[in-house]
């Protein structure tokens, strides 16, 4: 029998961050417990203003063996990067 509590992935929105970022994972018995554990483990040093948790089981991940087919084709297509454009100084957060 597996006595481990289910795993939850934790995402925190930092004070100055624009989006929630993955910070790690916690074990918990249910989603409310996971929020509390995430608060206790990952926001002790004033890191965040909002927490998301999702059951790790619910994450659909790409397969490591598909890496070449998925990611290698983009390596030599530098024209996809917007680095050829001049960005005016008064445009923030791009």
């Amino acid at each position: 029998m597996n006595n481990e509590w289910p795993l939850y992935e934790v995402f925190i929105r930092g004070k100055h961050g624009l989006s929630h970022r993955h910070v790690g994972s916690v074990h918990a018995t249910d989603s409310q417990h996971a929020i509390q554990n995430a608060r206790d483990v990952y926001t002790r040093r004033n890191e965040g203003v909002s927490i998301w948790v999702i059951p790790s089981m619910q994450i659909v991940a790409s397969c490591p063996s598909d890496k070449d087919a998925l990611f290698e084709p983009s390596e030599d297509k530098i024209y996809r990067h917007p680095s050829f454009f001049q960005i005016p100084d008064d445009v923030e957060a791009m």
Partner: protein
Amino acid sequence: MGDNTLVLGQRLSEWCGHGPAPEEDIALANIALDLIGQTRLWLDLAGNREGLGRDSDMLAYHRNPWDFKNLLLVEQPNRDFGVTMMRQFLFDTWHLETLRILSHHTDKDVRGIAQKSSKEVTYHRARSTNIVIALGDGTEKSQLRMQSALNRLYPYVGEMFMTDKDDLIDMAALRPRFDAHLSATLNKATLTKPESEFYHKGGKTGTQHSEHLSHILATMQSLPRSYPEAKW
């Protein structure tokens, strides 16, 4: 207030490194630290009002057990995780109601500490309430342990609502709200409140602490008492 948070903070810190899961371990240490932080505020204020030049460290480390005014509940040993969380739940429920009233006190220093502490204690109570419900309404074994924890600790509830000359507020007036949260939680946790309303007393007056207080103070105070000049 400062002696309650000091003794319970020290008690909870005994769990550090021994929690049933890393997450619970960190959570208990966080709560212990919150309580020690509150202790500093209360005991510094007490020392200041006393006017004998004693600060929170002097009051924490250089007083004898009979000078401590903490509730008997907070000096009770941790025993298992169920007893620790039941003790925490009973204390948090009382603590939050007390701070809620002290947050409107006429003394602005008392009011300030109470308002700051309330935010921390709101979280403490939510957490301990959820754990009491989860373990009470859990497995047969966890339910049994939580019921036995409640039976063991309920005789320390009555003292929390005694009012004596040192109290700033009418403690008995807090009981209805305490009882409401207690009943609602026990109901969800499938636990039964013991019938007897007998309670132990003598903690908050300092006249009859249990044997456990001397032991915890000996552990906490041995270093500063042996080496009064020691620096961290």
